[in-house]
């Protein structure tokens, strides 16, 4: 049967649409022109300026600290949550499941706004800790979903087999379940890491003085046209690292 060419063409157009702005960014980061309207020659100038911008690297450090700790915490919480959701069928898990799903569809502005309300009303000063709490909260659901998918593919007769061969319940979990679940947990953690680095809206609400994450820094740089080309350079580096992380998680998923 002849296949219609229309979906294929449209897919190509959509993918081009998705990449077009990114390509413009990357190109402009090497463009000597300040506004990037026309190509005025190749330059490393913006990368040199970026290298010298200490406040950007300070923000990178803040962002990495938060992303790493938030993804570790959400990996632990999310793995437990996924196990509970998969293992038990009860009213408790129905409630649990709704609670895990809701943050996935909650608009960022509501989550940021409501967490800010909580911190103000309970007198917690906004800062690193509040950003970390917010990030764990929105990463948790994503990690849970990834690990849950992995658990649904897990063949639980393997646990029976381990016990049949003399492993205690604990040994079966350590020797069989965890090693097989690990790629899923890592993939979930990687997703959490990416989401945490990416977040602007929620972080904007719950950040305090001295806790400028990278997206917050980018937002403030956008207000001064002098630093716009530097943002291009920074964006290019970020897009490249996203590529790397995506490739890594792709590998992890496939090795399973």
């Amino acid at each position, binding site marked *: 049967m002849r296949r219609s060419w229309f979906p294929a063409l449209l897919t190509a157009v959509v993918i081009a649409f998705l990449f077009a702005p990114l390509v413009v960014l990357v190109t402009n980061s090497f463009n000597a022109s300040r506004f990037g309207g026309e190509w005025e020659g190749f330059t490393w100038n913006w990368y040199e300026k970026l290298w010298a911008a200490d406040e950007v690297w300070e923000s990178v450090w803040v962002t990495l600290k938060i992303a790493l700790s938030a993804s570790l915490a959400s990996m632990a919480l999310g793995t437990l949550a996924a196990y509970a959701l998969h293992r038990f069928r009860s009213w408790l898990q129905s409630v649990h499941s709704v609670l895990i799903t809701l943050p996935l569809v909650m608009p960022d502005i509501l989550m940021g706004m409501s967490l800010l309300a909580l911190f103000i009303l309970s007198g917690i000063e906004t800062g690193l800790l509040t950003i970390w709490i917010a990030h764990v909260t929105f990463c948790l659901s994503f990690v849970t979903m990834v690990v849950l998918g992995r658990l649904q593919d897990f063949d639980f*007769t393997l646990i029976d*087999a381990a016990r049949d061969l003399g492993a205690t319940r604990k040994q079966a979990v350590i020797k069989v379940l965890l090693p097989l679940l690990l790629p899923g947990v890592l993939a979930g953690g990687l997703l959490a890491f990416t989401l945490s680095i990416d977040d602007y809206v929620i972080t904007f609400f719950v950040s305090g003085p001295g806790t400028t994450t990278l997206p917050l820094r980018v937002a403030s740089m956008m207000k001064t046209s002098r630093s716009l080309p530097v943002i291009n350079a920074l964006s290019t580096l970020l897009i490249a690292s996203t590529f790397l992380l995506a490739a890594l998680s792709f590998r992890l998923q496939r090795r399973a």
Partner: protein
Amino acid sequence: MGGFLVIDHVSKSFGSLRAVDDVCLEVGPGEAFSLLGPSGCGKTTLLRMIAGFERPDSGRILVAGQDISHLPPEQRPVNTVFQNYALFPHLSVWENIAFGLRMSGRPRDEIRGGVDRMLELVRLSEHAKKRPAQLSGGQKQRVAIARALVNRPQVLLLDEPLAALDLKLRQHMLMELNTLHEQVGTTFIYVTHDQGEAMSLSDRIAVMNAGKVEQVDGPEALYETPRSSFVATFIGDANFFTGTAVEHQHEGYVRVMVDGLGSPLVLSNGAVGSNQTLKLMVRPEKISLTLNRPPSGERVNAFPGTVEDIAYFGSHTRYRVRIGEHRVIAQLQRSRFSGGGIEPPRGADVWMSFHPDEARVVRLEDAA
């Protein structure tokens, strides 16, 4: 109790469903024994109770005189070959087989020796370093068997061991399993829904239905003298006729009145009272078809009928013959049709006959 594995009045319910209902079985040492039945008959639940994955609600399970009913699976002298093998995908073939020995903390040398010997026994030594995903179905199965046997279990449980294999491989593995059983001499318990598998693998078979054991016997006895119509239909094909015993004759024969079929003479196979309602069973291959009426001198039951349908199977041909209200299936080997070399075409008038010794009276309670 002379059994090596003893199932003593074991019952198990899931909610309102009685999965295993007061089952008693005794299996001898070194015996190859099958639990046979349709899905949902309780055979898998019984197997899981022997392995320790389920606890019986009541009753006991003993191995070599020791009550193991309340031991967790890891402490039982029983190992299982799982239906889909349940090989650990993150471990190599060698590590899969070593798993049990490592769990019981055997010394390194003993583990190496045991695993290598097992790999040799199942002829997989050159695949020791592979992952399960790189093996064929038959190889996976052999790893699963080696992984269980290396622990020297007193009873080996095999859950539908051939179900995941294709037809050719299945016949090959059937022979291999029999050879293996002879070599290791362990008690093998098969669980299967395939009567052919059960008959060729085991010394004795327990046919299960709705949580109960219907009959325990050797393969031949089950086929030739089934004690219920369930066993008769589950193992092989059968024609049934419901009738009333009318007249006892010498040497244990009885004449049975069947509506539209006159009163055939059959071997009564136990006490049958007069005027008792009962069920007759005749296997399709025990029936003869002839164009002419068989000589009436012999004690043969013969009835005139019409061929309704014919299906050719190569090694044999099946006929559906209509006799009044009854439809009878007859299975003939080409040479057995004694109609002068021609096979009766559809619509032909034929005589259907069977010898009284080839018919069976099956249990009356399921005559309904």
